[in-house]
């Protein structure tokens, strides 16, 4: 494959990753959120495989397959099952209204480009232009965690951040060493079990997954 074309495909996929990040930021329904999250995982997986092919880095195939299985199938499935079991139908309320969140998201993207410009200049990889998008994805995930007051959306925001980090590793250095990638995947999997248990605890204790109710622990009272 021609390097020029590969770089373009890479940028194209990166644009879609950013699009899914914004889609998650504005999506109110939990089912749709989980679906968008799965799509984001699929885009990352394809991107990783292409980068692996072009750069001739075989360990990226393993990362790609791991991403495919973990982020496209396992995690969305677990989330789906939990949402069905806990009978969550309510639409998610946002703390800040959606147009405002979009604007903050835009500002974050610009900020990421500004921050990553000197780093991208040093890079000679075909993926160098997407590093800023990776950071933007991380920051938008963070924004989502802050603006949503529902346990499931906070977790999806957390996982979206993790997606952004994975993307950053692929863009900056063609992926971290395999040991590290495997370890990170293992941590994400453990985290998935933990938040699964958590959802049940929160649900039985507070009778809903609205994090707003958890505000007993305050300072100085």
């Amino acid at each position, binding site marked *: 494959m021609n390097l020029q074309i590969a770089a373009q495909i890479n940028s194209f996929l990166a644009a879609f990753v950013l699009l899914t990040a914004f889609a998650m930021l504005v999506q109110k329904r939990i089912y749709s959120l989980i679906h968008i999250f799965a799509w984001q995982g699929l885009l990352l997986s394809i991107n990783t495989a292409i980068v692996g092919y072009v750069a001739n880095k075989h360990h990226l195939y393993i990362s790609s397959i791991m991403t495919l299985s973990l982020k496209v199938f396992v995690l969305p499935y677990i989330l789906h099952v939990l949402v069905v079991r806990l009978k969550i139908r309510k639409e998610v309320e946002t703390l800040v209204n959606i147009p405002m969140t979009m604007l903050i998201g835009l500002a974050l993207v610009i900020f990421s480009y500004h921050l990553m410009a000197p*780093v991208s200049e040093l890079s000679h990889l075909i993926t160098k232009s997407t590093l800023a998008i990776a950071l933007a994805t991380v920051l938008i995930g963070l924004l989502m*965690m802050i603006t949503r007051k529902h346990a499931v959306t906070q977790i999806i925001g*957390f996982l979206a*951040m993790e997606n952004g980090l994975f993307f950053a590793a692929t863009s900056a250095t063609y992926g971290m060493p395999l040991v*590290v990638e495997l370890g990170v995947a293992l*941590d994400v999997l453990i985290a998935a079990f933990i938040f699964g248990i958590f959802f049940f605890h929160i649900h039985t*204790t507070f009778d809903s997954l609205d994090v707003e109710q958890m505000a007993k*622990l305050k300072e100085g009272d």
Partner: protein
Amino acid sequence: MTLLILLGVPLVAALILAFVGERKLAPEINIFGSAATCAAGFMLALQVYEQGPMMAGGKFFFVDAFNVYLAVLTSFVSMTTAVFSRRYMRREVEHGRVGHVQMRFYHAMFQLFIFAMLLCLLTNNIGVLWIAMELATLSTVLLVSLYRTPTAIEAAWKYFILCGVGISQALFGTVLLYFAAEKVLGEGGEALLWTNLSQVSGQLEPTVLSLAFVFLMVGYGTKVGLVPLHNWLPDAHSEGPTPISAVLSGLLLNIALYALVRCKVLVDGATHSHQAGNIMMGFGLLSVLVAAFSLLRQKDIKRMFSYSSIEHMGITTFAFGLGGPIATFGALLHMLVHSLAKSAIFFTVGHASQMHRTQDMDKIRGLFKGNPLVGWGMMFGVMAIVGMPPFGIFTSEFLILTATIKDAPLLTPFLLLGLGVAFAGLFRKVQQMVSGDIPDNQRSLKVAHLPVLLHMGLVLIIGLYLPDFLSRWFHTAVELLK
């Protein structure tokens, strides 16, 4: 080999305890496992002391004076905590606060937590360091919510989310570090090995590294509990079981700081400036001041002492940031003595709150009369922690202050203000609790003497006379961190 035992024992113990479960022997297995880990830790220290730094497992593990002393400390405090937790947790079961299923979970996770911390310390790969740090968080999240009360679940959720977010930033920092390292060292796992990185740190791209440090500082700083990233810490400490508060305060915060310091050494090498140090000094000083004033307002005994932990981590971070031989020596010593004294305090706090069945300081009274060991233990613990001579913390704080007066005289008053306020706040509260007559709500209890006496004894000995091997050890570590 010793290294393998050191890491293997807690992992195997975690598996065994997961299967043994609620049977009567579980606490004893827990103690036995931790004791074996501790023995292995001392053996490893002896090896390093005699033969100098070493690598094992194909460069995967690296042991030098800096991390081996923390490994010994970690395994030692986890052993004494296991001893303390045997009786403490049994009583919590009797009081009906935890069920048998949770106890199985508690023991297995305790060992897994120790494993994660030791892996953090001993690994040579800064990527694996990150993974182990995340594992340490994950293994303690459900321990914080062990009591399943609404507040405990809230605290654990906060801990999970905030530390998850924080540590993600650290991973981004690690990616950037790898990006810079790859250019010099070539790609593959070799470029993330600390031993390789520290050799070539002068050639790493300074702009990338200073950017990476910001992310690493925010990430690991969240776990150290530095203000303004400290929100999770008082909640997690006050709502979790006391043995867990003791190891969180005494060990986990140290480990996170260790990770930060390792990264700082690399960044300093690349940038040839004091930039990373200045950032650390800023965060450290802010933590000291905010924590000192916050602890004045606390009503919950464990919350108060968790703010004191933030204060002390602030002092240590400040000292590492200040750099120079005296401050670094002080910081290393401070990590050691704070860890010992703070876990001892948490042991006595655990006993005191069990005697009164509350963590509300207004309802805890008459500890001297009720149980002299608990009362005097807490009194001496607090005297040590506020930095009164002849305890070890006096020595370390004195060193840090001397270095501050010399290198950053303008900051000295702020540091002193923080120390003074914390001193007054802690003393006022503790004096009320230990003195007076035995109140109606107090019950007498059998307590575990050994952990408190051992820790306080060590803090006292270090304060009176710093053993030769320890000071030589610290000097070697100071050389490493230059």
